[in-house]
């Protein structure tokens, strides 16, 4: 390949000026005029109860109240992969904070006051918060009608249980693998729920105009998917896709929390209820925590067999997920893990059970990493412990088993090109692996941690991307796509891809945020796939444009198309060196012929991309036979951690992460992803600590008691390392990188902690408190009291895994 001019360069973000000047508009910045109405939601105080009666008569009398809406007004379900969620709770509530009704008023304070006057009579029911209870015999059912719910074909709910989905992957023969092993080691790891904590809470304005047009201005990662879910849910009212328009201005962080549809359905419904007026639903920080999505909790048991030479012979990985009250999106997290819970290793014998369990806690859903951070904590902790038992260096152990191109994946397909060994070697070298460091402080110790990671996008097999591209009179370009700029630099990267094909610099290319009426289709901005998927679509559109331009020049000047090429926004010709036609001279108005007429016209193009090689048709009992994942991105990371033995406090002195991105379209943006991902991941390891009461109420839906790092709490030094083993089907060889950068973090800390002070902790988070107590022989679980920090209440190490039908 010839040297590239724009791809591989750290181009300035094309949204930079808008962001730094404050010109960038977010949903809450948009002005809807004096007729804008405000909604306040009436929430369930119970984790599980029957709704006996809703009396809104007092609320309706409050001056300024326009409408009170309840489940009776919109008796419809919705959901991305499973139709199990309700626009407003109908008949029963399933988690504390669930929307039961909404008051629409002329100002927010009136709405809030009136909402308090809506009297809801409940009949409380027993609730199930604990996974053990949820999976027990005669368990209370969160969804008695589960068997009647429609869902995507790759989900396997178990009727009359709380199991919403069970992904089984079987490769080889694990029992045989364990027999062949010299050592078999088994243990249990637990990861609680987490919240995304995007700086911008969810906000959406809906307007159903008098002509029957429903427009939504939404803070979302998924405009098209939102439109589709709205159209499905509201179909009984006669709405179709063409009637619905979703506009997504800039977003203040998503991290998966703004994928799919959660609270947005409320605005769509309320807009229909107050036809003619726009209505705004804006979540508070508290609601952002408990009524969008949360990262799901998991209890995972890992059994691993190894030979003395370090070869892994078998992995049995059983994961029970606390998916919450609705799993319409979260069950796909469970599914993704069920296909990939071996980690980036070549394992001949595999048995994975990933079980999605309903509980009466807030709905689980997508969160950066999509389940991989959760299972890597246990797996990468286990890798270190197994290495220690066979007296092998943990980095060498990983290297020995590292997956390589062509290896057979757990579901039978083959591994894409990857530079895992290179990543391992570079990350290990950067933290001087093997060299012990001493703290200058008498009460501190320094340890090093290492972990590998992998992740594939979790997408339906026909998740597609499309792009439009058009020229302007000055030779500048507009790209129209519906991937979302959620901070990652998507818009800039799309411009760089088009720039590379057309030689128009990114600074002369505008890429705007989506509007489903005008922008080309994109499934969703999730799964770290848009650089790859949408990038391919933009590249295809740019190539179509290039062909059209060459065709025009060919028609007018008669040059062979093979002789024509682009350079610095000119069409040039190898057979006529003095020919140089500036784009701006013809891309709108065409080229004049000797006869005085013009050929050509406004140049525009379109491109599309769908991974045509994927399928979700694997056997339900083994997952063999399909090709559910497009590719895996792999990498390795290390940290140097200082631990205060007296206080348990930890400080990351250095963090290193090497990731194989195929081709960094924009190296600065990749490095930013690495820094951001590590900081977010380390926060889940060290600080974030969600707490529920025994009644299922979230106790810390705020930054007073749910801690995300400040500038003082980030590592002293982060070293990003970019590995580039090209992805053959990616644009210029690129593959996804957004989520991967946080996946290793929790295991890094756990492994470094053990290296520093000899303490192995098997449950997240690894707070200073937990470390200090455990260092003194006090088990945190024994003293934590009734404010449970996890998705279960008993001792996780005694947890009995539900293995019925799991052969």
């Amino acid at each position, binding site marked *: 390949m010839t040297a590239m001019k724009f791809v591989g360069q750290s181009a300035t973000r094309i949204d930079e000026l808008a962001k730094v000047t404050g010109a960038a508009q977010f949903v809450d910045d948009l002005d809807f005029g004096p007729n804008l109405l405000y909604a306040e939601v009436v929430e369930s105080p119970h984790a599980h109860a029957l709704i006996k009666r809703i009396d809104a008569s007092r609320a309706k009398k409050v001056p300024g109240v326009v409408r009170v809406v309840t489940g009776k007004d919109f008796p419809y379900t919705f959901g991305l992969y499973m139709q199990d969620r309700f626009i407003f709770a109908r008949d029963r509530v399933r988690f504390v904070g669930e929307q039961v009704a909404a008051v629409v008023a002329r100002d927010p304070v009136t709405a809030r006051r009136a909402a308090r006057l809506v009297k809801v009579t409940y009949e409380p029911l027993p609730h199930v918060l604990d996974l053990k209870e949820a999976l027990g015999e005669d368990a209370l059912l969160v969804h008695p009608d589960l068997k009647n719910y429609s869902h995507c074909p790759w989900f396997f709910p178990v009727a009359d249980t709380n199991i919403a989905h069970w992904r089984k992957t079987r490769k080889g023969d694990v029992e045989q693998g364990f027999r062949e092993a010299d050592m078999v080691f088994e243990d249990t790891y637990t990861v609680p729920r987490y919240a995304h904590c995007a700086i911008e809470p969810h906000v959406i304005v809906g307007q159903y105009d008098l002509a029957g047009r429903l427009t939504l201005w939404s803070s979302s990662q998924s405009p098209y998917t939102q439109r589709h879910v709205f159209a499905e849910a509201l179909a009984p009212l006669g709405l179709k896709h063409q009637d619905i328009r979703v506009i997504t201005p800039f977003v203040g962080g998503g991290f998966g929390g703004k994928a799919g549809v959660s609270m947005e359905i409320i605005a769509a419904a309320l807009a229909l209820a107050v036809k003619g007026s726009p209505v705004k639903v804006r979540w508070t920080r508290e609601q952002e925590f408990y009524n969008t999505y949360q990262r799901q909790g998991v209890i995972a048991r890992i059994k691993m067999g190894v030979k003395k030479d370090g070869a892994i012979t078998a992995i049995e990985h059983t994961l029970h997920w606390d998916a919450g009250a609705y799993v319409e999106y979260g069950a796909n997290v469970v599914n993704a893990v069920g296909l990939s819970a071996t980690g980036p290793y070549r394992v001949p014998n595999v048995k994975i059970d990933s079980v999605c369990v309903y509980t009466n806690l807030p709905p689980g859903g997508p969160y950066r990493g999509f389940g991989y951070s959760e299972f890597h904590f246990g797996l990468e902790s286990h890798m270190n412990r197994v290495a220690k038992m066979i007296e092998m260096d943990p980095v060498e152990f990983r290297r020995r088993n590292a997956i390589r191109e062509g290896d057979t994946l757990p579901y039978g397909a083959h591994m894409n090109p990857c530079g895992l060994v290179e990543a391992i070697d570079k990350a290990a070298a950067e933290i001087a692996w093997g060299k012990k460091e001493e703290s200058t402080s008498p009460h501190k110790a320094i340890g090093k941690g290492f972990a590998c990671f992998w992740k594939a996008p979790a997408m339906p097999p026909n998740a597609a991307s499309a792009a439009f591209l058009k020229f302007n009179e000055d030779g500048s370009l507009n790209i129209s796509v519906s991937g979302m700029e959620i901070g990652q630099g998507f818009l800039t990267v799309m411009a760089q891809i088009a720039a590379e094909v057309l030689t128009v610099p990114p600074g002369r290319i505008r890429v705007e945020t989506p509007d489903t009426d005008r922008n080309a289709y994109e499934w969703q901005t999730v799964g770290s796939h848009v650089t790859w998927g949408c990038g391919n679509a933009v590249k295809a559109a740019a190539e179509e444009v290039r062909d059209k331009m060459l065709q025009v020049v060919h028609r007018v000047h008669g040059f062979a198309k093979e002789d024509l090429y682009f350079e610095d926004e000119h069409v040039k010709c190898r057979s006529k060196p003095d020919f140089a036609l500036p784009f701006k001279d013809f891309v709108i108005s065409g080229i004049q012929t000797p006869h005085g007429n013009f050929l050509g016209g406004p140049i525009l193009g379109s491109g599309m991309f769908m991974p045509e090689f994927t399928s979700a048709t694997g056997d339900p009992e083994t997952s063999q036979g399909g090709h559910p994942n497009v590719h895996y991105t792999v990498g390795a990371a290390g940290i140097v951690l200082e631990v205060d033995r007296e206080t348990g*406090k930890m400080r990351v002195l250095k963090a290193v992460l090497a990731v194989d991105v195929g081709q960094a379209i924009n190296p600065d943006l990749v490095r930013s992803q690495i820094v951001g991902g590590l900081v977010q991941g380390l926060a889940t390891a060290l600080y974030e600590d969600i*707490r529920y009461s025994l009644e299922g109420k979230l*106790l810390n839906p705020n930054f007073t008691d749910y801690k995300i790092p400040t*500038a003082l709490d980030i590592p002293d030094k982060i070293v990003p390392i970019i590995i580039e083993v090209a992805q053959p089907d990616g644009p210029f060889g690129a593959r996804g990188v957004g989520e991967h950068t946080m996946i290793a973090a929790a295991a890094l800390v756990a492994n470094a902690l053990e290296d520093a002070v000899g303490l192995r902790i098997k449950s997240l988070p690894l707070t200073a408190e937990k470390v200090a*107590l455990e260092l003194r022989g*006090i088990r945190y679980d024994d*003293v*934590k009291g009734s*404010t449970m920090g996890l998705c279960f209440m008993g001792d996780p190490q005694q947890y009995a895994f539900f293995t019925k039908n799991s052969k």
Partner: protein
Amino acid sequence: MSIACEFDYRKPKTLSKAIRLLAKRGRQARVLAGGTDLVGWLRDALVAPDLLVDIKGFDDLKGIGVKNRALVIGALATFSDVLESDLVAEKLPLFREMAGMVASNGVRNRATLVGNICSAVPCCDAGPVLQVYNAVVHVRGPNGKRKIPIGQWFLGPRKTALRPGELATSVAVPFPGKKHAGCFVKLKRYRGEDLAQASVAVLILAGREYRLAFGAVAPIAVRGPRTEALLKGKALSPDLLEEAGRLAVEEVVPITDIRSTKEYRALMVEVMVRRGLKTAASRLAGKGPAYGINVMEEDAP
């Protein structure tokens, strides 16, 4: 942020008018100064007053000065004022160390030190430091002025000796009159802004007099008289530090809540007392670290 409850808001021109308003409405009235606690409580409907009396306009209550050999911190002096005051830095740098650990810059710019002790939550940062200096709260009410020693000020969580109708106008911190040095130690869940999981204020006066006070490990900020007695007159040996730490734990009654288990609080009180005493002693000897470090997070250079 929408506040759903309704209340009257008054900003009287004179202090005596404010006192009259407060006296008339009694417990239904709330004083608004920085509002960093009160506005949050209103939003969360934890309080539902009928009346807010805004005292922000009273110049008499502003600022930090010296009067009768005491540092006088006015009711409107913010933590940022304390942090930036040259007078505080020179005379009572322990207050500066404490103020620097209160919340974040934005909150410190509004939150007042006197408001902090009027809110009287168990984790209030000002409490332990005022305790070791035997500070006195100056109060005005419908029946005139009175002075309340800090030891009698806190009655329980969110309860003070302030009577309905009364307003805390300032807090006076008497200068110890001899060479002294201190250390404020705050246990937080991370280095960023946080409410104290536990706090310890240490003050050592020339002549080997030791004072200790604790926050967030008892219903109110409390002194540690037994530990002080143990230490009195003695030089700090490693053994004595250990013993003081152990004894201090017996003087507090930590509970388990969302911020910490009582077990961790107790363990950390021991560590905090040891580190606080050691740091204060080296400061007294003129070689300790500058005020402003948190010895739970970093070692003295």
